[in-house]
């Protein structure tokens, strides 16, 4: 197991307190336990507000947890001093949902991809020249090339931007990649290319993925095991085919029923009549 989450609870307290009133709190994650094996694609499925993003923020150490443990490769991240947590982040990287918002519009592609290598200079020990060579190597790895080095993000399409985001995440040689809805802002034809790229990269580099999505078709395609999260609780966990073929929770059945399949014969409405 490369990542083990044990009984993780995260409660947010409301900032303002009414005069003499009780302080309200909200439990975003409630006693969550998960294990992700090395080299595995683990899917986390849930609707908006279910706690998916809070969980990733806890793993990255961007959120103080209320109780529980997050063990990455034998190290408990929740007790790690800040400096060591920073070093640990070279091993855990993230690709964000919106490729239009997650790349700095005023930075060149070269600088965007080189920045994590500068931040983790102490771990990687790369000089400026070596960093530039590595940027080209990374661009080629994600299907772009040296001709794209000195351009700005606005010159790229959504799919190309997401490739840049992936190259940036891979810059520091991570073992574990969190993919937070990496294709939800893309067209299906482009989504297919990015999903295949992620699959190839996993084969080539032996990466472990935590793949977050609400698109069950995508999850089924890319993941080995999945967990369904609903209002901070894990309601079902298992192999991807098991859950799709034999869902055991009501929530899983509801989600599967709500997924619109691209087959008119399976429509819940009688759409044949008109015309």
């Amino acid at each position, binding site marked *: 197991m490369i990542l083990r989450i044990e009984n993780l609870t995260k409660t947010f307290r409301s900032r303002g307190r009414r005069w003499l009133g009780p302080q309200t709190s909200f439990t975003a994650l409630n006693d969550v336990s998960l294990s992700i094996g090395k080299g595995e694609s683990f899917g986390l499925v849930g609707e908006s507000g279910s706690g998916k993003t809070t969980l990733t923020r806890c793993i990255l150490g961007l959120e103080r947890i209320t109780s529980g443990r997050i063990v990455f490769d034998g190290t408990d991240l929740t007790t790690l001093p800040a400096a060591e947590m920073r070093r640990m982040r070279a091993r855990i990287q993230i690709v964000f949902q919106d490729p239009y918002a997650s790349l700095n519009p005023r930075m060149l592609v070269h600088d965007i991809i080189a920045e994590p290598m500068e931040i983790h200079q102490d771990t990687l020990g790369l000089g400026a020249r070596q960093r530039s060579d590595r940027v080209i190597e990374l661009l080629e790895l994600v299907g772009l090339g040296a001709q794209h080095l000195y351009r700005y993000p606005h010159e790229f399409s959504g799919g190309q931007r997401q490739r840049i985001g992936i190259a940036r995440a891979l810059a520091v040689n991570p073992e574990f990649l969190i993919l937070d809805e990496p294709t939800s802002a893309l067209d299906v034809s482009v989504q297919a290319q990015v999903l295949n790229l992620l699959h190839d990269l996993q084969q080539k580099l032996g990466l472990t993925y935590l793949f977050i999505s609400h698109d069950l078709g995508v999850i089924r395609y890319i993941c080995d095991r999945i967990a369904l999260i609903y209002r901070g609780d894990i309601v079902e966990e298992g192999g991807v085919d098991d859950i799709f073929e034999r869902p055991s929770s009501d929530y899983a059945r509801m989600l599967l029923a709500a*997924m*619109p399949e*691209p087959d008119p014969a399976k429509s819940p409405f009688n759409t044949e009549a008109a015309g």
Partner: protein
Amino acid sequence: MAFLDIRDLHLAMRTFEGEAHVLNGINLSVERGEIWGLVGETGCGKSLTGLSISRLVPSPPGRYLRGEIRFAGQDLLATPEDGMRRLRGGHIGMIFQDPTTNLNPAFRIGEQMVDVALHADAVDPAILGLAPGASRRQRRVEARRLAIAMLDKVGVPDAARRIDDYPHQFSGGMRQRVLIAMALIGKPELLIADEPTTALDVSVQAQILRLIHSLVLEYQLAVLLITHNLGVVAQLCTHVAVMYAGNIIESGPVRPVFRNPTHPYTRALMKAVPHATHRRGELQGLPGSVPNLFTPPPGCRLAPRCPVAQPRCAERVPPTIAVSPGHDVACVLATPAGSAAA
């Protein structure tokens, strides 16, 4: 003539880099009771087609080069602006993608809905059903009653109380219901819905689709549903039109088009949707991207990306032919209905 009839519509947009031909001969006929899905990649002209019908494309930079849009027999491109104002929110209702940015955060939703109802009533007094001499106060009271009835109709629980809430007090799905209720106040005959469920969770999406379906049955609405989700089209729509780079390249009743997609672009789109039978790494995308519309490729605009392109594809725009009754395809490789199968 169809209820909504778009014939050979050409739209150009003037930009600093030149004039882009964004709609290149759109033909579309929609009858009442039909739900048309308009699908295609980003930038193919789906939204501009929808905006053209409600004449919301600013001009300049937009310029209609040719064609006509007839709505219930009326030529919309020749209708003056005040005539369009009477149609919008009355005969033509619209809902847009993001329910957050389409409600004013500073006003209670009741006030926003009453505004719409009063405007609709000014155009068609039958909306509120008051005598011509009714006072402003009477009109407001009646408009509010109508707004509550519409919220109730679209499934907002406890509508009489929620009407005095602000937009931020509603969830995404509820806000989209509020927008649908608002679009229905003017009793539209045509509803243009531009990605109405893209920002929503699948369970909420399923509820909104059910709602649109029931409204079509009840009011015999004609619906133009703009989306890039083929699943949504397969579930809800009676007809589908697939757009690529400003053209409709395949259209027809939803079942024949989904069962027998004929244009290489439609096939590519359908192959790109992950399905239970796909093994990992086998999903096929369509290489390349949507062409530059300043200097579009000659002939078929898909030709540079098309896996089965031939030299003749670049010669001229392929004519649209019927491969089966109502199922039209614009590809030189399509076989017309009635001819022997190749």
